[in-house]
């Protein structure tokens, strides 16, 4: 029925007469396609790839963070609303409060990454004979990361501890989110832990206590079980 009318009197979206509906309506997620970087510079991308590969190393449990697409995930997120604090309350005055009052900085995630990655490379070059983070050995990278984590390594002009929390969270989100966002390639993390993914109908399974659910893992737009 013809329901979303604009009344010139009130110029609102008027809802009356029945349920508003349009054919083909919906806002499905846009699939991230790898290839190119939308936010990171080439050097930043290399640094983040190296970083995520240490946070999630390749082993028999799963591919590493880079091959899982975690850097691609972070890049696309930073290029989008997440990266710019879209939807946040961004009016001033900005002042730090207590821990319980939550983050108050106007520095967006995208800005944080830019600053921190630059500071990280500066710091590494200073400590490791001119080598950037990407040039370090795995052990050295882990040392650097642990330093960020425990606060012993302070990057210049950057809240290192909060940057570490940020990149750790983003990396793990990319690892565990639906593959449509660029990470968790081929549902690697879900296969690792035993999460069947984007199924909606478990009615056949609620009574099967302590039994493995044998549904094939699927994502929102990732259905290997649909091919022969």
């Amino acid at each position, binding site marked *: 029925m*013809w329901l979303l*009318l604009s009344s010139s009197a009130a110029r609102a979206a008027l809802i009356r007469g029945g349920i508003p509906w349009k054919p083909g309506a*919906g806002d499905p997620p846009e699939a991230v396609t790898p290839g190119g970087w939308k936010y990171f510079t080439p050097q930043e991308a290399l640094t983040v790839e190296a970083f995520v590969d240490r946070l999630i190393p390749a082993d028999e449990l799963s591919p590493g963070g880079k091959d899982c697409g975690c850097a691609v995930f972070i890049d696309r997120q930073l290029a989008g609303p997440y990266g710019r604090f879209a939807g946040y309350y961004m009016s001033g005055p900005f002042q730090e409060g207590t821990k319980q009052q939550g983050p108050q900085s106007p520095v967006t995630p995208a800005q944080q990454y830019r600053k921190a990655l630059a500071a990280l490379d500066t710091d590494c070059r200073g400590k490791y004979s001119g080598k950037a983070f990407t040039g370090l050995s795995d052990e050295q990278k882990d040392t650097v990361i642990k330093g960020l984590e425990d606060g012993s390594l302070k990057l210049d002009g950057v809240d290192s501890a909060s940057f570490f929390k940020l990149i750790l969270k983003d990396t793990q989100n990319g690892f565990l989110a639906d593959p449509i966002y660029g990470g968790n390639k081929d549902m690697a993390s879900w296969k690792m832990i035993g999460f069947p993914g984007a199924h909606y*109908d478990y009615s056949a399974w609620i009574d099967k206590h302590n039994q493995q659910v044998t549904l094939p893992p699927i994502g929102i737009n990732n259905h290997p*079980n*649909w091919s022969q």
Partner: protein
Amino acid sequence: MPDESKILRQLASALVLGAALSLPVSANLSALAASIDKQDFTQIQHGRYLTVVGDCAACHTLPGSGHDFAGGRSIETPFGNLIAPNITPDPQTGIGAWTDDEFVNALTKGTGRHGERLYPAMPYTYYTRVTRDDALAIRAYLNTVPAVRNPLKSDQLPFPLDMRVSIAVWDKLFFEPESFDPDQSKSAQWNRGAYLTEGLGHCGMCHTPKNALGADDSGKALQGYALQGWFAPNITNDPRRGLGSWSVDQIASYLKTGHNSTAAGNGLMAETINLSTSQMSDDDLKAIATYLKDRPGDRNGQPGEPQNTPAAPDQGKMKIGAQIYADECSGCHRGDGKGTPGLFPALSDTPAVQQTDPTTLVHIVLRGGLSVGTQEAPTAAAMPAFAWVLDDDQVAALLTYIRNAWGNAAPAVSASAVGKERAALVERSD
């Protein structure tokens, strides 16, 4: 001495017509036939009801305009779009200046005020069976709706179809005015149903296949027809493709509420249910159902149409379709295809998914669909659009599966057919 048999026939007609209404049944019906009594509210009420049965508003009322019957709605035909005229009593732009005879002729003979031919988008090929009394009742009612000044040009079709004289040719080939002849061997209820279905109900307008010139393909009555991006289904009594598996009550419930235990009205039929059948009397709906249930199946078929169970579909396609179904569909329609009565239609053992033409299925899968909400069944659950997540091959596999699982049997769906329809639907805003 009046002709007794004539009176008996007139009585029979009156009974048929007045079955649901409290019209005075008198042996002398000529008083009603001669004129319209402005104080006869019964006639006006009767006329209003008949405009609901005939669903005049569907064409003649522009949705959202607030001006009933003032025309202006674009009517899609296979040959182009027409604008439905203004049938309010406005003397200049409506039918206020028409005589009653001119009105009756328009309805039943397809002729305009000056004898010009109406496009058969106006279903006079069906309304021809409407009795003069009923036509006059409609006229009486239309006389009472607010007169709206709405100057419109109806002709929108390309040359040479914009020349009304071309319709005379069409009429000659395909139209013969007739009146409704009750079948004396059948019940009054059956005859009432026949009168409604073949007359004001004009069901065949959508449900009967058409020939290349847009006329009913007689001999295939009610076997289904593709129009405006949908396929109006087969409503013969075929047990698989038609209403054979539905009872009279299920048909009546569907028409009244938009739902029965297995089906949900959708698409173009949703509007018909909302504007027309949901507001008809229970007796009339039962009559229509009774008549439809007494129709033959479609066993005669047409060349190429399967006579018996269609060929078994490709098993690989069925396997893929089953997976897609499990992931995207079973959350509502359930693994066994039984759906939820009154909410999600059943897919197993139902005619909707076994039509020879899968247009409606493809349409709903690609674009979603809002099921009809009525007073009795207000929920109006909607199916979401899957065009973004299913490509043509996947839609084809899914529908082939649905059409052949759980004991269903219907021709497979091809990816190319899906692709064609997907492209065509992109052009449609409705």
